[in-house]
């Protein structure tokens, strides 16, 4: 099972998840998808999971990133880079904030 401890306070984590949820909701609505339609596209058995994510509870499992990116009309890499600061800020900081923008673009 996937583990991803971030060593952040619960409040920090929740704030980040809520921000991710808002972004996901905007992206879904921009694609003209309902929560049920998106759930069908990403293979979620219960579509209320989409609502839960958009509220900031839980996260998209990493093994589903590609499916979600496709459903939301995004390149998988762009999708992950967008979500990474929300879901895994430590990794994001190491990869991007300690390097120049040019290096980030290269990634």
């Amino acid at each position, binding site marked *: *099972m*996937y*583990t*991803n*401890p971030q060593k952040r306070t*619960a409040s920090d*984590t*929740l704030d980040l*998840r809520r921000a991710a949820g808002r972004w996901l909701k905007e992206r879904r609505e921009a694609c003209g998808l*309902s*929560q*049920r339609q998106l759930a069908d596209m*990403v*293979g*979620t*058995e*219960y*579509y*209320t*999971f*989409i*609502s*839960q*994510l958009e*509220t900031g*509870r*839980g*996260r998209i*499992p990493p*093994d*589903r990133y590609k499916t979600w990116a496709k459903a939301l009309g995004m390149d998988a890499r762009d999708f992950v880079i967008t979500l990474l600061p929300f879901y895994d800020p430590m990794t994001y900081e190491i990869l991007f904030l300690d390097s120049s923008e040019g290096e980030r673009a290269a990634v």
Partner: protein
Amino acid sequence: MSVRAVSFFRPSPQSRDWSNQELAEFYRVEASLIRGGLLIDTDRGLSDEGDPWFVFCHRETSEVIVHFARIDGYYVVASSAIEGCARGRQFRPLIENVIEKYPITIPRSPSGGKLFIHPAALLVAFVTVCFYKLGQTDAVAAELKHAMPAAGATLTPVQKEVPGGVQSIALDEQTTTALLAAIASAVWAAGSGDTQTNVAPIISTPDLGALAAGNLPSIDSLFSSDIVSTIHLRSQAISDLTTGDDASSLLFALHSRPLDTHSIALPQTVAALDDLTIALPTSTPSTVHSAGPGAGPGPTLQFAVQGAASNLIVASTTSVATQEVQLALGASAQTHLVKDLSGAEAQLILAVAPAQAPTIVSSTALEASVAHATTSSNATQSGANALPTSAATALTVELNAAENTIEQFVAVHQDFQLIKSSAETIIYDSHLTPTNMSSAIQETFSFPDGSSIFLIGLPAVPHSTPFLS
């Protein structure tokens, strides 16, 4: 300039939010879990179509432990802990089915015992198990259709495979203690809502005696390990259960069938259970577990041990085993009963039956039975509400007669409660109060193994129709 027309009369999705009763149940569970020492948080919302969901989350990691929803009229339960998504028209059977798929295993201790779970605690047990199963992992609300568990994942508590392909969830002692504390809290909370009698249901752990020796083969056969025994929630007919002639087996059958109460049957008592005590604030000073945001009004629980609920095991393993959850309640019918019946009135239990089992010795206050009874010289009384000595009579009855009587009692007093004190089990009418105790009718069944069942309740209406035949 482009103009976008927006209709103000577009019908909004009809909200089908949780009912107040459903929300109250969820928040009761949350409060119970918090009292049990679990770091739990909850959240809820509505989908864009108006379907409600409710999640239990880990307070520190914010990860989702269990997701409940009602989609298109069907209840849905999803959790990485059960690696699946279950649906059902009715909520409680849905939870029961999930739990039955994932029996709980707990540490074994030398002494036998059995734990009955009040229906109010069923959801608490389920969420607790999910909480601990996901305790050291990210409780990602998985997309379950294609999700596969990672190879080599370490789960604490341990997940075990049992015959038949059923996976069980094994809890260590500390986890078990927290589970039991949460369950006790849930049961208490359920009972505290009864403002008329202020009677809380009881978790009891009858001494199984012979029951542990093989009357539950389906339980014993689940695991060959000496380390764990199995808690298995079940509600089967009497014929499917035990055939023993002791009080525990009869009680087990009784409690499992008519009221659809789900029992956790474990061949051995949990060590952690031994010292779990719930008391009102006026009793032994101890750690107070404050109620969570959903706790609402009600008595504050104090666990008469040192430290938090998660540390209960430390205290319990170093002290004298008492074999049961002891509930020291306040001014209520229960207190009255516990005080009056657990001690001296136990002497009302008459002589043990002759060797020809299954035979039961019964004492009853009914004059009608006097003609067929032999007065016991051992019968004594104590307490203001005890029966007159002259009324205490003894007769020998067959086991099925006792079963019939108890079933009749349960049918008349459908909200009966249980108390287990040593080898004595008390089944009483929850409407009993100190003021109406004088009109109560009582009967005791004493079993060859020394155990007993004590019935006490108000007469059925009209008064000329007692619950005892």
